[in-house]
């Protein structure tokens, strides 16, 4: 079944501001990244998918339902985590998530049970009985995720779930989102303005800019070849590049970084480290990252400019 489908979806505010322009996209179940700069139309798309905004023209379907005419049915099966603060400071997370579970149609006992389950799954245990006002940003983001999860939706719409989190918090949140998509069997649409962040957890990506579709693609066929090792030394970058090339490693240069494809061989880490040690260079970092997706979108943008 198609998760989300839009057909020439257009939304203009007051006839002047265009938030979405002729957006046609089809998304299969899984973890989907929706990437775009601030103001690209991500939040407008989510509001249309929830049936909170009516499109100016075109059509949208969520889980096979039309959100403009069947908003209740769509919202009963969708969980939404907004971007902004949306938590009352003087309630405990347990009470608040239970209440919202009831507003999603769960009976009282089921709402209480599923609220503590949802809070446990996002990593809140005894803290859930404390008032939300005393929570850290990371805990608040988790409560926001738990309230979207409490009624066991078929689709989660997450608007910038890593907003305001430190790097460790971001990683934890992304791991959690990935777990929900991979283990819980719930499809997830993750909005972000950071491509590098969502590409780590997504099955497919949609990039929009200025309300238009830049690119929509499955990641499965490109992830295998996408891992590269990034090496940074504070001096002697040229010497190291020459040494690595001499050792038959296909090295390339990107600013201060040297990039080596990770699948060159299982001993590639050792060979790089040996080269660094032999040249006696101060190594700043050596880590694995995905690279091709960003390139993919960059070239799409370039070709668009050329057209």
């Amino acid at each position, binding site marked *: 079944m198609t998760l989300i489908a839009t057909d020439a979806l257009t939304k203009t505010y007051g006839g002047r501001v265009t938030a979405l322009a002729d957006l046609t996209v089809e998304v299969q179940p899984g973890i989907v990244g929706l990437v775009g700069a601030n103001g690209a139309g991500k939040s407008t798309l989510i*509001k249309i998918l*929830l049936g*909170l*905004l009516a499109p100016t023209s075109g059509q949208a379907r969520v889980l096979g339902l039309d959100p403009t005419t069947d908003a*209740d*049915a769509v*919202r*009963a099966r*969708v*969980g*939404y985590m*907004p971007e*902004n*603060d*949306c*938590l*009352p*400071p*003087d*309630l405990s997370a347990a*009470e608040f998530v239970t*209440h*919202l579970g*009831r*507003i*999603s*149609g*769960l*009976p*009282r006992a*089921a709402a209480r049970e*599923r609220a503590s*389950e949802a809070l446990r*799954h996002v990593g809140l245990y005894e803290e859930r009985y404390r*008032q939300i006002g005393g929570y850290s940003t990371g805990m608040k983001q988790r409560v926001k995720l738990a*309230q979207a999860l409490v*009624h*066991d939706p078929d689709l989660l719409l997450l608007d910038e779930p890593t907003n305001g989190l430190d790097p460790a918090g971001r990683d934890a949140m992304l791991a959690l989102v990935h777990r929900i998509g991979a*283990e*819980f*069997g719930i499809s997830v649409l993750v909005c972000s303005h950071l491509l590098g962040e969502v590409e780590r957890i997504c099955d497919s990506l949609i990039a929009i800019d200025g309300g238009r579709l830049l690119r929509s693609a499955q990641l499965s066929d490109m992830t295998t070849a996408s891992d590269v090792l990034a090496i940074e030394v504070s001096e002697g970058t040229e010497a190291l590049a020459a040494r690595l090339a001499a050792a038959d490693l296909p090295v390339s240069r990107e600013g201060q970084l040297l990039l080596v494809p990770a699948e060159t061989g299982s001993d590639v880490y050792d060979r790089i480290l040996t080269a660094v040690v032999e040249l006696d260079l101060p190594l700043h970092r050596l880590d694995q990252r995905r690279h091709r997706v960003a390139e993919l979108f960059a070239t799409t943008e370039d070709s668009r400019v050329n057209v």
Partner: protein
Amino acid sequence: MSTSDQLTAARGTGPTPAGPAVAGTTSNGAPGGVIHDIGYQRYTGVRLGRRHVVGALYAHSLRTAFGLGRSAKAKIFPWFIVGVVVAAAAGLVAVRAQIGQVLLSYAQFADTMSWLVIFFVAVVAPELVSRDLGSGVLPLYFSRPLRLVDYPLAKFAALATAVFMLLGAPQLVMFLGGAFTTDAGWSGVWDEVTDLAPGLAYAVLWAGVFSAIGLAVASVTGKRAFAAGGIVAVFLMTTPIGGVLSVLPSVTANQLAGLVAPSSLVQGTGIWLFRDALITEAGTGLDTGGFGPLYGLVTVVLIAGCIAALIARYRKAARR
């Protein structure tokens, strides 16, 4: 059943104890791993419809009005007001039992408590709507299976119920006092019932008007202090205008003066509907002349207008 029990049970029903070491995965490739499924469980139970959802929101809001399910601090004010009105009612019962004289009828009691009702609405209405606006929680409601009108109507119903209970509970105390001390037996109790009925109906009128105005004002701002000030201002600032109109040398202006302020509007409508219950002595009370139906009409239009404004307010809020 605890998690470990489920684990044991799952292992127990596995293929064979002597099977492959990796429990939970079967050779045919299907996810036969019962053990893996205990992490997250899909909800297969009943999902209630919109009526129950609105009911849950109403019940939650009514509890919030009296600070139930909230901190002790949130309970102080509402229960102080409840304490005052019930104590006043108990005092009236005591006086009536001692000197055998009815100082206030059931309906007049509501009039006497009007300023307490104003303060109650001024504190509780922002608690019900401004808090949700201020903390940005509305998108969480509107992304759930509620219709746009459900939220404002549930809040109105909850506040109106709270005000009705605030005025109805002391009347019930007075009724019990009157019924138990009556000398006329069952007919005396029945007399009390016929007196109580217009009193409660009058309380409904108070609840409707004050809740509608209070919520319409409170929904403008997410700051509770501003909302409370605005509500008190609307109720108290209109009273002097009515006062000026009531001393003008024109009988028509005097009789229409009550329309200006919410309290006197309710009184005027009450006098039109239950004159005997409100005017126990000739020459007292608001003089509405023959304009009683007009008071009633303005009351209805005012409640409808405030609710319409409230709905329009949330229609706008949902889009943002």
